[in-house]
């Protein structure tokens, strides 16, 4: 197979063999989508405010996807991603302030620091599973917040950091950087999900020991995913710093921040690509809408949403979509319906061995119903 870069750079005419997990149409659709969003604000008459908010939304989508790599693909629910978001944000801000580095270098640096920080606490804690891991992440998140708030030398303490105005890109320009961020996040998500790595991650999610007995190095893959996730979220933090031009630890590291990532992914459909992205959109839209109107109700609304989703549609929007399409005679492969992943097997179907596809009665089984105490 040929490398993704070549695949990307292949203009019309040039024939390039793509990996099985990356059908040409997907690649085209992806490129088209990015191009459209890139050009949209130049042609469409969108208000500046909307324009900026969309830019911010791109970042949230990226962050939600990044959280999803760990929470959705490996099944390790992190309540502490704010730690990386904040770390990335403050490192980036510091680098821009004191060293005057160009913003994107600062973002990347912040992201890497965040990624390493994630590994630092993640490598030991990822041995824990289920609630144990989640609880640990809560601890990490809170401890990080307290230390960051106290460490005024670096984070400016309770009064936070203000970036020089007019230094970095304007909110208006950030729209496009948000878009690139999102593009990278989607690309990574697709790779982590559909390439063979996706298979390993899913195996780990389903049954970590069985995966080990089949030769999957769970520790290594979980570390890789956490590092990527942490880095991406960290970069998002940097973006956020540039967007707000003022950040303060209480806000960047807040528990609610960690929660927001979870909400986005869960609303959209945990473990799915489009789902997590869509979730972020819904999240932002809800906020924008409630903000102006029923701000005193937004907590409860998220709560209700969460409850309903978990009870009735663990796959969130994605699950709903599947249901709707079923109404129109769509018969999803059983593993998709069960919230599994449509992985390398795509290749097989392409090879025409779809005889058995979908004939099985598709019962909507909630993710992990199989689990036994």
């Amino acid at each position: 197979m040929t490398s993704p870069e070549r695949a990307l750079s292949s203009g019309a005419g040039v024939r390039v063999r793509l990996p099985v997990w990356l059908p040409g149409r997907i690649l085209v659709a992806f490129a088209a989508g990015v191009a459209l969003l890139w050009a949209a604000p130049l042609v469409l008459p969108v208000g500046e405010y909307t324009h900026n908010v969309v830019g911010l939304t791109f970042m949230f989508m990226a962050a939600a996807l990044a959280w999803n790599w760990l929470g959705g693909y490996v099944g390790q629910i992190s309540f502490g991603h704010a730690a990386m978001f904040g770390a990335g944000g403050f490192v980036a801000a510091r680098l821009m302030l004191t060293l005057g580095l160009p913003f994107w270098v600062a973002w990347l640096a912040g992201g890497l620091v965040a990624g390493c920080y994630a590994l630092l606490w993640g490598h030991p804690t990822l041995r824990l599973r289920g609630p144990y891991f989640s609880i640990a992440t809560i601890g990490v998140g809170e401890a990080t917040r307290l230390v960051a708030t106290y460490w005024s030398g670096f984070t400016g303490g309770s009064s936070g950091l203000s970036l020089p105005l007019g230094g970095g890109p304007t909110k208006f320009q950030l729209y496009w950087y948000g878009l690139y961020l999102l593009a990278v996040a989607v690309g990574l998500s697709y790779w982590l999900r559909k390439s063979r790595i996706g298979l390993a991650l899913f195996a780990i999610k389903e049954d970590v020991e069985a995966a080990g007995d089949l030769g999957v190095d769970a520790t290594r893959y979980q570390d890789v995913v956490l590092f990527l996730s942490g880095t991406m979220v960290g970069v998002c933090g940097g973006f956020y710093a540039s967007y707000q031009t003022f950040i303060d630890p209480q806000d960047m590291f807040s528990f609610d921040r960690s929660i927001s990532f979870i909400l986005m992914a869960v609303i959209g459909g945990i473990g799915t690509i489009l789902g997590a992205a869509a979730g972020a959109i819904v999240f932002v839209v809800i906020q924008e809408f409630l903000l102006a109107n029923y701000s005193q109700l937004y907590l409860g609304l998220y709560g209700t949403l969460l409850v309903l989703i978990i009870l009735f549609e663990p796959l969130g929007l994605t699950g709903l979509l599947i249901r709707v399409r079923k109404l129109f005679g769509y018969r999803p492969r059983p593993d998709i319906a069960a919230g599994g992943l449509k992985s390398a097997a795509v290749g097989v179907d392409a090879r025409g061995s779809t005889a058995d596809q979908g004939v099985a009665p598709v019962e909507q089984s909630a993710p992990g119903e199989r689990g036994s105490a």
Partner: protein
Amino acid sequence: MAEALTLAVSAVLLAGFYAAMAYGLGLIYGVLRIVNLAHGGIIMAGAYLTWQLFTRFHVDPYLAIPVVLVVFFLVGVTIYYCLVRFLPRGPAGAVQSLLLLFGVWLIIRNLAYLLFTGNDQAIRTTYSTSSVSILGASYSLNRLLVFGISLVALIALHLFLTRTYSGKAIRAAGQNLESCTLVGINVERVYVLTFGLGTALAGLAGLLASTLFAFNPSFGAGELLKSFVIIVLGGLGSVVGIASGAVVLASAEVFSIYAVPSYLTSAVGFVLLVVVLVLRPGGLFGQKVLR
């Protein structure tokens, strides 16, 4: 030296409250193996109920205990029947329960905002600021009472779990589900009972909190997190462990003033949490399940 002693005593008193705070979480985890993220919300609600009883009907907080217990037992039963019951058992269920119950917490918080606004409330009884002197140093009467009640709760819980049929059933369910069903224990009933009991205990913690602290609808987050730390320190789901965990956390917080700036004392708990989880998943005092 005398100062250290005073600190030690206040650490123990604080531990009393912490333990009361963690019983509910620990019990529910020990049996249903789910982490009740609504715990903090229940504590907050408990405080508000006590406050309402006090301001509207002039019921002394400590006399309100039975009311609070009953009310929140029912609340717990309701939550179980309407929501938790539908979760898949096992690991996947555990993860979903985190999200589900977090949703419940958000709802409770929002209700409190709508009903009582975001203002800080506090209960002042005639004895709110009166004190008792032990070994020369004087301690808040309220804190002593809270400690006493927490102790009683611990003993009562212990007796209930060891002496009564239902209690033994709960412990059995906590230890080995299969054999429970084999010997014909109605697991569903046990779960309802446990969840109700756990919630009632959380309500009690709220009541105790309301006598000590000022509170508002976002109250409870810190309590939830500390309860986590405690049940992890004590070994998830062991009653005696919880008490010991509470003592460890309280002492760590109180005495860390000598080591770290007082601002970071609460961070100490969380660091402790992660370290223990990683090094001794069974908890400092080994994995005892409700014994």
